[in-house]
């Protein structure tokens, strides 16, 4: 019995395998891997979940802007079986959660339609709540007489000064909040959304009101 020639020495065979069939295998492999990764290992579901949390909080803040009277609403983070945190700046609500397949942290962001006054407790600001705002305005703009609430409205001529102060306060805090937003990590940590009105009395006795939304962490007494 004669010995068979070595594979490479066998000139009778063809090695088509090495060309198109390897290409076929690679292409099919990449295609199947793409479908599998998008279907089973993608983070789109986790991203959608984070987006839903961000959207829910943003909607709560925007809804406050539509209240036609003074209102205080408690906002609590939804309880989830994974760790996440929420940051709120003047323009965005951002949710970050752990456990991504390709990245450690999954981020979802929702832009706010309005610009609320965000008062983080750690900042030690001159005012946090609406009551503190009235006291502050009374002391600094109302001569100790007008607070801007419905019982002690400002005179109409003070409107521009008060408006200017609020505009400057928002412009001052917005860039700081963009770098260092209000952070919520604990689902038991409450956040208070407050709609409040500053009243101005016209010469004919009519009241004109200006509504603002305040977000703070101070538990009301």
């Amino acid at each position, binding site marked *: 019995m004669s010995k068979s020639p070595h594979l490479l020495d066998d000139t009778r065979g*063809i*090695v088509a395998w090495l060309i*198109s069939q390897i290409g076929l295998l690679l292409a099919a492999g990449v295609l199947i891997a793409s479908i599998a990764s*998008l279907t089973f290992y993608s983070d789109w579901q986790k991203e959608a979940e984070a987006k839903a949390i961000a959207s829910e909080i943003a909607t709560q803040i925007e809804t406050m802007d*539509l209240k*036609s009277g003074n209102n205080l609403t408690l906002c609590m983070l939804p309880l989830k079986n994974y760790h996440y945190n929420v940051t709120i700046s003047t323009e965005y609500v951002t949710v970050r959660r752990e456990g991504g397949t390709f990245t450690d942290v999954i981020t979802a962001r929702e*832009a706010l*339609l*309005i610009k609320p006054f965000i008062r983080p407790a750690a900042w030690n600001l001159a005012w946090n709540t609406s009551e503190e705002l009235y006291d502050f305005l009374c002391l600094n703009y109302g001569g100790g007489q007008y607070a801007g609430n419905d019982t002690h409205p400002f005179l109409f001529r003070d409107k521009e000064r008060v408006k200017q102060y609020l505009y400057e306060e928002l412009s001052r805090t917005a860039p700081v909040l963009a770098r260092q937003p209000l952070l919520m990590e604990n689902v038991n940590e409450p956040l208070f959304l407050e709609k409040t009105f500053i009243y101005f009395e016209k010469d004919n006795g009519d009241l004109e009101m200006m509504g603002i939304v305040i977000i703070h962490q101070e538990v009301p007494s």
Partner: protein
Amino acid sequence: MKPSFIGDKRGVSEEFTSLPALMVVMIGFALFFALIATTYVTYHQKLDEKELHEAAHHAVLKLTLPESPLVSEGDTDTPLIVSAPISAISANDLTECCNLTGYDYRVKIYYYDEQGEKQLLRGTENLFTGTHSSGDTVSASRKIAVKFADGEIRYGKIVVTVWRIEG
């Protein structure tokens, strides 16, 4: 000495079976990525539209609150609007009442006359914030009652059209 298979100059026709299979896989590839790309683009378009709708809805509700310069009397359920002061309302008054971050908007108020024809309320022809729209717009409307100076009240609606601020 026999030449190695690489040096073998005799040509062979490759088996034809693998080439159609390769073609099928490549078509699958193309279809798959076309599908993914379409889904991605459509998703973002829908997301953009949803955000515009939300902004328009927010603006129309905000502009019909009792503190709105457009509303003279009524509560949040049935806002009433008088025709007389509308012409005195400026873009600044609108922004003071409803300032949407990243959006500008136009307000039009319609009422239905005795013949049931829809009429644009005088003074709302050019009532808008910022500059004219240059991209996609979305409108939201709300039913209102338009009160004229003589005490005549007509059924109408307020239409707010929103667009994104460029840049």
